[in-house]
């Protein structure tokens, strides 16, 4: 998932400090619902997420798209210069251009 014009989506009402307040550096979020987990990783304006339950993914994607202007990129293929291929046996991670 990718946030369009990430910096324009936030209304700044408070004073802006050069240093980020504590507790804001976490970029990995986790939600547990009974036996299912949803994991969300944010890097600047790129978001990757995965879940043991497909409906949790859909719900998250819908929620985020309603709140911010962002586009859904589909299955994870490329993140931070690392390519990801999905196979039946597992996931193959490489940096081939």
């Amino acid at each position: 998932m990718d946030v369009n014009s990430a910096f324009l989506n936030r209304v700044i009402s408070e004073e802006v400090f050069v240093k980020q307040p504590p507790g804001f550096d976490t970029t990995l979020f986790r939600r547990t619902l009974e036996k299912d987990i949803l994991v969300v990783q944010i890097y600047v304006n790129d978001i990757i997420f995965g879940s043991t339950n497909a409906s949790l993914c859909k719900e998250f994607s819908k929620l985020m798209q309603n709140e911010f202007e962002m586009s859904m990129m589909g299955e994870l293929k490329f993140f931070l210069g690392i390519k990801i291929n999905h196979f039946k046996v597992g996931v193959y991670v490489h940096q081939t251009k």
Partner: protein
Amino acid sequence: MHPTCTLSKEDTGSKVDQKLYRGIIGSLLYLTASRPDILFNVCLCARFQSDPRESHLTVVKRIFRFLKGTTNLGLLYRKSLDYKLVGFCDADYACDKIERKSTSGNCQFLGKNLISWARKRQATIDISTTEVEYISAASCCTQLLWMNHQLEDYQINANNIPIYCDNAAAICLSKNPILHSRAKHIEIKHHFIRDYFKKGILDIQFIDTEHQWADIFT
């Protein structure tokens, strides 16, 4: 890098552009995120960033040639329900020819999948291979403990996480808290592994060099 080739600081070879050299090392370090096989060579070349010479750049170019022929390599993460955390640690005694410092290398597996790897020159100069391996085990231990905390978030709890070490004396040192003349100088921070062994969180076991996966980092 050729096995017989040893790199050292030199004054005679012609200087190369430091900015270029640092740039190359930076790119290669990022590449180690999916290519642990080049970690050894890249980390070695990274030591000469302060004064890179022609001989160092030649070795770096060799890494590039190796990469060109092996672009199809990457990491495969197999689907599995095996969440057993395992650590491997190895060390290279006094591999740094200039300061005579040793290097530790370690890697961690979750089930059969490699999830983390590291190589680091130790801060101290050591007197025995035992000491070097012991310090290496301690750094592997810190990484394993952190991973264990992360896994607890996913309701995966583990006890007796194995750390595989190929030095029997280092294993004895971690299990038997005796300070004899060969070991009493080791800094206290490296001894914390004993505590985790005693509590049953970690378990240090012997493995032969043949099956020591961390061997490629040292």
